[in-house]
């Protein structure tokens, strides 16, 4: 069996409002409700609603043969519930067809896996509960960590939680001569299967689709099917992992991205021997060829495919360490608002905005950031964190007395 596994990341952070030094100690609402609502509504119109409708059509049209998988972050679910219940309903319809698989992740799309097993497990549990609640008791079997961040150690934590498979990047520096088009297993917990993103073919759709200076522009379904037919016969799985916002938001409707997706399944069925599968089907049907060793965490971000988009410069490390220093204190406080803010502050995007890699990937960072510079992002986050620390300490003092 040769199969294509489509997986889409759907995530929106709770962006911080401009929070000034003068607000510390007084203003405890950190979130830019107006901006966040606008982003959700804009992306809903350009991407979520039309693309969900298109996928629903394809699922009906191909009667059980076309399928995809999503990971919907908790911060996205929360914002969708508040700002876009119509989008939530369309996702519920998709899941109800039985052809759409949902994955688990940390609730707030956090970097907790790199810092605290406890917090990691707590956030995964929260995501499980929320998916169950919103999608009619649905229980994911496959895990996808924030931005495909993965290492042997993170894989072992995922295996401990009972998942069958995990998704990550087919990074060149861990694969070497090996192909991403096989199923591998975790080096420490061999039962856990590891699905690797084929970044060449994924990025042809996600990044290069509308690039007119690309030699293969324009990308057509015939061309794409020719490429997948050229994959050696023994390689069985083609993992196409990408941001869901690729459709209509990163690649605008005018680029023809919707038309491409509309015709892709048909072209695949009529001109190749590929089928479509969800990650859990791949995990159940395909045996791993070997272990894959990932001693140092990888991700799907930037050229380096490492953690440097979020951590590594002094600002990111300072913000990250100061935040997680609070973990024990927060755990001891039973206050819903403190708990909520603690989670939302962990969202990886806050650290992404502080990235100072200004070269090839700087423009990507800039595109996603609501701040003018990484320095602004850092100052704003630290002001908020300073207020949050005061609240935590105050609550703790109240509890003690």
């Amino acid at each position, binding site marked *: 069996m040769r199969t294509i596994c489509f997986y889409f990341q759907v995530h929106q952070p709770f962006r911080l409002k401009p929070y000034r030094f003068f607000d*510390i100690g007084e203003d405890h609402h950190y979130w830019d409700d107006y901006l966040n609502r606008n982003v959700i509504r804009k992306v809903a119109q350009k991407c979520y609603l039309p693309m969900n409708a298109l996928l629903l059509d394809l699922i009906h049209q191909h009667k059980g043969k076309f399928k995809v998988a999503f990971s919907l972050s908790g911060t996205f679910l929360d914002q969708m519930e508040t700002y876009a219940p119509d989008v939530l309903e369309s996702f519920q319809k998709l899941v109800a067809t039985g052809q759409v698989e949902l994955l688990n992740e940390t609730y707030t799309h956090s970097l907790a896996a790199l810092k605290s097993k406890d917090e990691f497990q707590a956030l995964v549990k929260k995501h499980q509960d929320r998916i169950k609640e919103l999608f009619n008791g649905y229980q994911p079997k496959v895990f996808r960590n924030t931005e495909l961040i993965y290492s042997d150690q993170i894989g072992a934590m995922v295996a401990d939680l009972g998942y069958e498979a995990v998704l990550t990047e087919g990074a060149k520096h861990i694969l070497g001569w090996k192909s991403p088009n096989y199923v591998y297993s975790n080096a420490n917990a061999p039962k856990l299967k590891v699905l690797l993103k084929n970044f060449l073919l994924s990025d042809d759709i996600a990044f290069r689709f509308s690039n007119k200076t690309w030699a293969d522009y324009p990308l057509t379904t015939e061309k794409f099917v020719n490429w997948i037919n050229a994959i050696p016969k023994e390689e069985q799985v083609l993992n196409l992992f990408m941001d869901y916002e690729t459709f209509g938001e990163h690649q605008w409707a005018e680029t023809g991205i919707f038309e491409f997706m509309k015709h892709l399944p048909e072209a695949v069925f009529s001109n190749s021997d590929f089928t479509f599968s969800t990650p859990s089907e791949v995990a159940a049907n395909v045996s791993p060829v070997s272990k894959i060793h990932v001693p140092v965490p990888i991700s799907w971000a930037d050229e380096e495919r490492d953690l440097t988009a979020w951590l590594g410069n002094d600002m990111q490390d300072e*913000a990250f360490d100061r935040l997680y220093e609070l973990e024990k204190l927060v755990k001891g406080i039973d206050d819903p608002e403190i708990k909520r803010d603690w989670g939302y502050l962990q969202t990886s995007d806050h650290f992404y905005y502080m990235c100072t890699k200004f070269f090839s990937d700087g423009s990507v960072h800039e595109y996603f950031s609501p701040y003018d510079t990484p320095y602004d992002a*850092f*100052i704003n986050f630290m002001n908020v964190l300073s207020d949050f620390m005061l609240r935590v300490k105050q609550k703790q003092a109240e509890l003690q007395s």
Partner: protein
Amino acid sequence: MFGWEFPPHISGGLGTACYGLVKGMNHHHQQVIFVVPKLWGDEEPMADFVNASDVRIDYREKRFKKFWKNLTYLEVSSFLVPYLGPEEFKKFTDYAVHDRTDVDESIFSNKFEFSGKYGKNLMEEVSRYALVAAQIARDKNNFDIIHAHDWLAFPAGIAAKEISGKPLVVHVHATEFDRSGETVNQPVYDIERAGMEAADHVVAVSQLTKNIIVKKYGIPASKVTVLHNAVLDSSIIKSKYEKKVPEKIVTFLGRITFQKGPEYFVEAAKKVIERDPNVRFVMAGSGDLLNRMIHRVAELRMATRFHFTGFLKGNDVDHMYAISDVYVMPSVSEPFGIAPLEAVRHNTPVIISKQSGVAEVLRNAIKVDFWDVDAMADAIFALLHYDGISRMFKELGSEELKKLKWEHVAAKLVTVYEKTLAERS
């Protein structure tokens, strides 16, 4: 008087000082024609403002042409021009890199616009301003003396003197050595020196500045008078604005540039926080060293105790002073430095560097060498923890403030004018 800025459109202490001086002169019934490159329409109607952009210029006048020729070819090859904010900085560098056209054709039309801000086209504007100054000097012949503030207006002063034959006083609020350290921008230095040499008398804002003028510009000490700045209002401000955090606050407020010594404040903060974590440090302002300071604070792992506010305007400046427990001005070289006096008005004890002119008039403040971060940390710690000393400074500081009036400065200036006019005749 030729200036470059006037409240409320100011980017530094020069505008505030000019405002105080004009107000003081008003008190002594002196008529002032104040020329600024661009009027915004909302200045107080105290002086007879002449908007340089509105003056029609007769470019065929020979003496003008000579002037233009003398000044056109001066170019700023350094980015360290006074009060260059980030926005202007960008414009300036864009200009320097992309669209430098040394002679703008519009100069030869009858009327031209001044941007009124520092930065882009700075040298060009300085020389255009001089051209206009000459025209004004010819049109308005009802004045006795010409007074030019800082190098930007010196060419204007020289031009006005040349065409009118009236005596010139140049007022030095800062020198190129304060702004750039020892690596001075030569064209700027040349203008400063030319202005001081052409002047009949030089006014310096402090003894510190007078020393530089004598030593580095070779001006005879007898030609230089020290007139310390004053404060517009010496009353104590009782702000209703309250601090929202439990910790004490130590503040740096000013442009974040080499001259202001922000890095010494950061290093001293680290030393204080190591001993007492219950303090918050605030660096308010903006400037070309801001990002470097943010990086350093992150590197020292004290960003939850050290905050940045960006550029503060209007009420926020008052609020910042009001909630500060200690104000620090670690300037590397500060001709005067009016900000500590504002802090005193808010009953905030101050620490100032010995390399500041204000140290000459403010006796009740802790004075440290800007580079001595240990002494600075000690002083901050002492003012935060030993109530006796901070209470004493609060009381005595506000007494001292009452003596610093612009009327007094203006009275001394009138004496300088009289002496200068007497020497001429």
